[in-house]
């Protein structure tokens, strides 16, 4: 097995389970299956900076190949696919009810839904992507659904 294989869901044929499986996706799309790599030692092109010399690489492809490439480039790389749940949501107002972060300064790392740490990026137009610790994913998803309900009330 490769180094730290037990962190990764990409080293087996077993089917991973989304941490959002038990929440009805009324106001979000579950993108937890996207590959996520935490990179140390710099910010590779296209990655989201998450701290000094730290970045998150999000990819919809061969995670192991990307990991190996980044390691070859001299970064320390950790597969955090299983650690972070991903939610795609739509609407600036919904985001404004989730976080006090400046939506004109994305991507960024900050708190959503009362203190849950998150990586937030803006896709196109009013679409946003949130990555949150998987253990808080169900809570965050329930908050997202609830906020959407409040906006539609």
């Amino acid at each position: 097995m490769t180094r730290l294989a037990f962190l990764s869901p990409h080293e087996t044929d077993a089917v991973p389970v989304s941490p959002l499986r038990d929440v009805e996706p009324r106001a979000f799309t579950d993108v937890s299956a996207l590959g996520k790599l935490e990179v140390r030692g710099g910010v590779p092109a296209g990655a989201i900076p998450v701290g000094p010399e730290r970045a998150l690489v999000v990819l919809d492809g061969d995670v192991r190949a990307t990991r190996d490439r980044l390691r070859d480039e001299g970064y320390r790389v950790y597969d955090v696919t299983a650690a972070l749940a991903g939610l795609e949501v739509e609407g600036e107002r919904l985001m404004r009810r989730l976080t006090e972060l400046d939506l004109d300064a994305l991507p960024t790392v900050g708190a959503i839904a009362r203190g849950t740490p998150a990586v937030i990026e803006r896709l196109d137009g009013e679409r946003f992507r949130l990555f949150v610790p998987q253990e808080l994913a169900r809570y965050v998803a329930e908050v997202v659904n609830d906020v959407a309900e409040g906006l539609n009330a």
Partner: protein
Amino acid sequence: MRLEPQAGERIDRSSPLTFTLDGREVTGFAGDTIGSALYAAGTRIFSRSFKYHRPRGLLCCSGHCPNCMMTVDGVPNVRVCTEPLREGARVRGQNVRGSLERDWLSVVDRFGGPFTPVGFYYRTMIRPRRAWPLYEKVLRNIAGLGRISPTGAHRRYDTEHRTVDVLVIGGGGAGRRAAAEAAKTGAEVLLVDEGHAFRGRGYEVLAPARALAVYEGGLVPVDAGSVLHRIRARRIVVAAGTLDQPLVFPGNDLVGVMLPGAVRRLVDEWAVRPGTRAVVVGDTGVAEQLRRAGVEVAAAVARANGLRAHGRGGRLRTVELDGRRIACDLLVASGARQPAYSLLAQAGARIDYEPRSGVFVPSALPPGVEVVGGAAGSERQQPVPAAYDGGGDKCFVCVCEDVTVKDLKRAVAEGFDSIELAKRYTTVTMGPCQGKLCHLASVRVLARETATPEALIGATTARPPWAPVELGLLAGRHLEPAKRSPLHRRHEDAGAEMMWTGQWRRPHSYGDPAGEVRAVHEHLGVIDVSTLGKIVVEGADAAALLERLYPNRFADLRIGRVRYGVLTTDGGRIFDDGTIARLAEDLYYVTTTSTGSEGVAEWFEWWNAIWGYDAEIVHVTGGVAAVNLAGPQARTALARLTDADVSKEAFRYLDAKEIRVAGIPCLALRIGFVGELGYELHCAASLAEPLWDALVRAGARPFGLEPQRVLRLEKAHVIVGQDTDSESNLLSAGMPWIVKADKEDFVGKWALPHAQVRERLVGFTAEVLPPEGAQVVRDGRIAGRVTSARSSERVGGAIGLAWIEPGYAEEGSTIQIRANGELHDAQVTLAPFYDPEGVLLRS
């Protein structure tokens, strides 16, 4: 009674709405407020005053004063003068015993004077002391404003965050001009106004909404009814205007005494005639408007030399103006127009009294904060007398708290002659209006009574909120962050009773804790320990870093081996524990307690940054699931699920191996918190379910936290935070073997020579199960406390851990523990209760 349609009126006469006041049906129109509809229907008494229960009617009609506070649909203290009318609303008078018209507590007004002077609650009803419970009951019942229904339905409140370039507070002429100008520069501008919504020119309008405060960093919370907007602005423009100040004269609270703004709104917005015969003092401009509305104006003067109002049943009947006695049912009386400076003061502006105009004005604004319009205080006006008192009816400075000129005089006479002290003693300015209508008057009266210039007395501190706000709005939604293990669904499906441990939801048990304990001892159990903190430490200096963080050694830990470690603070106090596995020369895997993971990860990062080591700290707690497979059959079960050699010889106690279990890559640690042969299996969180399912299929019975606590106690394994506290050190906790004092340095080494053993942590057995926290008693003195206790079938009786004085920490010595009010004998045990040699763990 409604007037002919007025230009710009807000009511829709084609759309009547019906509601009730104290059960009686009332009709108004769409566009009315509850207050305007009630007034149009003839209601004059809207509330009873706070202390004297005097009848009170509309005064400001702007949502500032307390006079129209009523209970609407169960929500107390709604200012009905600004609350939009809705069909079916149930409106009730509040602070009333009886009815608004006849409130028997108004006896306090007539006869209560001698018994209820200012500050009476500090000095009356004190003797006889034994009567206090009765006094308290009566006072408690009478005090307060409104009643909250404990069973009432919760309204929905949301919170919304905004960042804008410019925030304009106030939508009058000056505010709108400032907003339009700022918008022209291309800035994102938001204007907040208490009044009706309107379309902004190039800027956004949030109305009706009320700015509650200005906090540091330009944060302005805005109450928009059911949504609290938390707005951060780079520039704040305050255009809050001025506040008409009531005049202070005898009878100034009678029903029928109004401020000019109230009269204007009643006529202009809701086409309601405010009275039949009026006297105007102050703002004479309002006289013409009254005449147009068909009100006879008996007198209108800009300034009175003497003023007194008389009434009957709390309602205005006559006014004595400069010696003339005039019959009337409406007195429009106003003094200064006080700039609404509170938000500016909160932002840090200076507030000074301006003697030429008789009002407080703001200056020295902090960066990023501006003021325009009336709030700036540039309006020219003549000061009015501080009060027209001297005999007659009560002369109110503060209608919210029923504070009179006499009360202030008395406070001064008693020595409370500074405004901040007088405020606290009399509660003037501390009521629902928060000083909007009484702060100026109270300072002026105090100045007069102490013969001190107002400028020296100064303003009281302006604190948020600027306007009353529902607590529900501040609280927002009832959503509690909960951390769930990736196996949460499996626990629910298995019927687990879930419990909170910190932020985590964890299975207490699956319904049969004793049976679950037996399963682990006799066969095979599996527990979800995904909540354990997990940290990867990688880098050339990983070993050096851990060597300095822990009191024990990790540089000599062989690859593939595990060692127990305890973290101590700089002061040598225990703050976390866990296991450390070495996976490669430069790679360690650290586990921490469940509640300590974030603190430990930060601790590692902090020291790593200070020491400048080449080591990455990767906090992987949530991303990695962990289960503990434990019991005599653990090896056989594991062997069936893996190709790896897990024989006793190949996978020894305290070995760490990366193996596949049911095809899933796992880090397997052969350790045992629960005392039986066991393996802790760590895998990617999203693969936890297939791993768990495979283990359960292999015969493992899920066990919860409660059985785990029994099992670990049988082994006398310590839970940091439960059995230790912020004073515990390694010596007193019985773990001196962990400390490698010959190491050059580690966190807490400095404190070692100073470590004291005031208590020792020991095990005990007892016949009666004591509660955790119970006292340990020896020779009639408190000699310690119980930290953990459980009944153990295996040991046969109650077992536990306790801190006791070192002198009693001897194998077999007898101590006493207080349980259920009685003392019970217990025997001290220094070794684990179960398998003291650890034979099973190593088997």
